[in-house]
């Protein structure tokens, strides 16, 4: 077994390197799934009616089935799956993909892999160690989710084990997919992109299968079509926890994981260290005119990220429009939402829902702003900024090119969200509804000043000290997205909400459009930006 010599040592190294990142991702997955369970029980556990209305709206909705899966009857377990399963699967899939590529391909890319392999380390040891880390992480996620679920009386049964195992097994499968793509591409991003594309295909096939499923006679359950069986993500759903508790889809997932891992070992034996099955294609010998100039480079660095987010915002827009429409169909007469309307101002029900949900969504999607502004920090921490500023490029111009691009991205993403929402809403509803496409579009764009202010605050931190950008950005992001719910739960003073720019976005439509916060936030953003530019010009760039 010389091939595996040193595996345990490398496993310890990998765990040591991931001692922060892995626990954070595990906490995110477990916190999301485990944290939602008691909340769902609290909302739906007491009344059979709430569950019934939830399920009866989820079953006929095609979009519902795409994102919530094929619902299995009116019980609280069905609600749990519909609410958390998909997002939970995505988190652990991404975690597994990144863990494996980080400890295999990325090591080879940086040269650390060569150094490791020159030691007393078997040829298969690095890949084995990476896979073991992923299996361990998924096992921990599964056990923790199981542990939290059984602590909730409604979920204290064997089904919780199937639920947790279905998630963990899918994570392990995606780790094995990543093991294969790490052999195919010669750089980590390429390998990750391939693995994420595979995840996307799994999702689309499963979504197609579930949306083509057959609705049961009682209208409260859906049987997935055979197409869902073509997707390993479908297998995960088809475990049917809290309904059928099937074991064999889990076995299928683990079997396929083993087969793919074997294939990864085979591919690895066919290639040299550092090379890959598909080596990098050569690029152009000359730069095209699009790449030249400050904006050309900024566009090149930013466009991939923006494109991905545009797709995300588009999906979010469709989703929200359809959810609103589903809500209308289900709840228009319910007392809960009569209260909701009266508390959230004038206007009709749909306007209120849109006016409440778009700013919330804009706050959640402001993650785009952090990823875009972080590109500046990447340029600085990698030292490439030294090449750039060593030319006749002005610091102000460089910074404004990224800020300007991000601002353009903010408007574009929100516009896409608004337009997608408006189109989806109008396709989904009949002509009797009172919400126009323009209202939906404007409601989305009303968040532009808040997001711009959010951006300039992050730019300010970058101008202060670049290495704080990501930590501050994500911290501020979590604060802004959670504060309004947190200070309701913990009865914190209201001013804690004021610190979030998104709190000040006017509620539109539904109330008369309030220009004051728009103007105040826009002016503040300009001031913060001017100060940031001045500070950035004044500070040293941080170099090794």
């Amino acid at each position: 077994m010389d091939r595996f010599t040193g595996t345990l040592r490398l496993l310890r190294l990998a765990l040591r390197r991931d001692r922060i990142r892995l626990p954070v991702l595990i906490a995110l997955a477990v916190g999301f799934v485990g944290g939602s369970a008691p909340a769902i029980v609290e909302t739906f556990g007491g009344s059979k009616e709430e569950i019934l209305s939830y399920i009866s709206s989820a079953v006929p909705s095609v979009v519902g089935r795409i994102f919530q899966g094929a619902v299995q009857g009116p019980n609280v377990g069905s609600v749990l799956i519909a609410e958390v399963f998909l997002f939970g699967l995505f988190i652990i899939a991404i975690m597994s993909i990144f863990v494996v590529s980080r400890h295999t391909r990325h090591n080879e890319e940086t040269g650390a892999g060569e150094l490791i392999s020159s030691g007393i380390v078997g040829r298969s040891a690095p890949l084995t160690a990476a896979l073991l880390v992923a299996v361990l992480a998924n096992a921990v996620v599964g056990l923790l989710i199981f542990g939290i679920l059984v602590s909730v009386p409604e979920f204290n049964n064997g089904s919780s084990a199937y639920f947790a195992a279905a998630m963990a097994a899918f994570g392990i499968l995606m780790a094995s997919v990543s093991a294969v793509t790490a052999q195919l591409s010669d750089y980590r991003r390429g390998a990750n992109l391939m693995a994420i594309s595979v995840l996307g295909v799994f999702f689309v096939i499963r979504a197609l299968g579930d949306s083509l499923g057959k609705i049961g006679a009682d209208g409260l359950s859906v049987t997935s079509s055979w197409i869902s069986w073509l997707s390993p993500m479908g297998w995960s759903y088809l475990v049917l926890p809290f309904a059928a508790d099937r074991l064999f889809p889990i076995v299928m997932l683990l079997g396929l994981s083993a087969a793919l891992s074997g294939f990864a070992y085979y591919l690895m034996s066919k290639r040299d260290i550092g090379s890959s099955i598909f080596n990098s294609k050569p690029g152009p010998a000359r730069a095209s005119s699009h790449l030249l100039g400050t904006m050309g480079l900024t566009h090149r660095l930013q466009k991939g990220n923006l494109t991905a987010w545009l797709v995300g915002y588009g999906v979010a827009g469709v989703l929200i429009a359809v959810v609103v429409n589903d809500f209308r169909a289900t709840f228009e007469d319910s007392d809960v939402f009569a209260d909701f309307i009266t508390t959230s101002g004038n206007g009709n029900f749909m306007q209120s829902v849109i006016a409440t949900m778009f700013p919330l969504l804009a706050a959640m999607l402001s993650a785009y702003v952090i990823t875009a502004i972080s590109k500046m920090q990447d340029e600085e921490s990698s030292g490439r900024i030294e090449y750039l500023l060593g030319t006749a490029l002005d610091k102000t111009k460089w910074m404004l090119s990224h800020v300007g691009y991000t601002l353009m991205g903010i408007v574009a993403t929100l516009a896409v969200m608004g337009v997608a929402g408006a189109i989806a809403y109008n396709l989904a509803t009949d002509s009797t509804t009172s919400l126009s496409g323009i209202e939906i579009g404007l409601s989305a764009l009303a968040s532009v000043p808040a997001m711009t202010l959010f951006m300039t605050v992050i730019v300010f931190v970058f101008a202060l000290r670049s290495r704080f950008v990501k930590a501050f950005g994500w911290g501020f992001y979590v604060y802004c997205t959670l504060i309004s719910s947190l200070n309701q739960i913990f009865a914190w003073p209201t001013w804690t909400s004021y610190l979030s720019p998104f709190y000040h976005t006017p509620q539109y439509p539904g109330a008369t459009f309030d220009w004051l916060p728009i103007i105040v936030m826009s002016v503040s953003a300009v001031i913060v930006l001017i100060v940031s530019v001045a500070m950035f010009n004044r500070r040293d760039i941080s170099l090794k």
Partner: protein
Amino acid sequence: MSTNIEIQNLVKEFGSFRALDGLNLQVAEGEVHGFLGPNGSGKSTTIRIILGLLKKTSGQVTLLGQEPWGNSVELHRQLAYVPGDVNLWPNLSGGECIDLLGDLRGGLNEDKRANLIERFDLDPTKKFRTYSKGNKQKVALVAALASDVDLYILDEPTSGLDPLMEATFQQYVLELKDQGKTVLLSSHILAEVEALCDRVTIIREGKTVEQGTLRNIQELQRTNFTIESKQSAEAIANLDGVHEFEQSGDKASFEVEPQHLSAITKRIAELELTHITSHPPKLEELFLRHYDHSPRTKKQ
């Protein structure tokens, strides 16, 4: 001859750490100036202050007649810079990196670009991340040298080049010198400095410890002796013109200033010698002395 770079008493502090502590450097127009010092002695920091990328704490810095901090954009049009860390955009090709940096510098000379790519034998179609260390360095070099400027600031530009490419680089710098261009060359390759540089500045711990032409640096005029004798050579240590005396067992080594050479050799001849070697000084020895952190062993 005018001065392109003039630094007097430069101090740079990073928090409580004093990276530069009264550094002096003068680079005249049309010269190739060697800038030497051990790792972490402040070479790159000095260069970055010259370029206006870092802000000095105190002292005088003039680049082409101007204070660089705040005027860097205008100044950078007149110079080309190769940083020590070669790290460009991993997913751009080498050719794209060269064109982009050239464009940002205000345009590059097409003939030079083609010529340099050929001479350095660089494949411009490879993605930057796939280049080896030496080839990455070539991309950075071509990007800088293809510009039509009068001042080149090169921070350890050749540490990864093979001997053939090193020779190409030296040839190119000599051509620049013939054209009257100015080059500030920070380097660890002493043969390169000896071959190219008119004058050198040696720094240590943020201070200038030596500057001048290679011929004028006093310690480079000395002759090195190693002798073996049954008798003690200690007496030589105290003579005028003897430096760096070290005795271990029968062996003694020391350096002698040129004007004391005949007097000292007479004294050496009086010893019962079993072995003697003598060789001209090398930059390397000067270096080893300055780079060595232990206190000097010189005896007066």
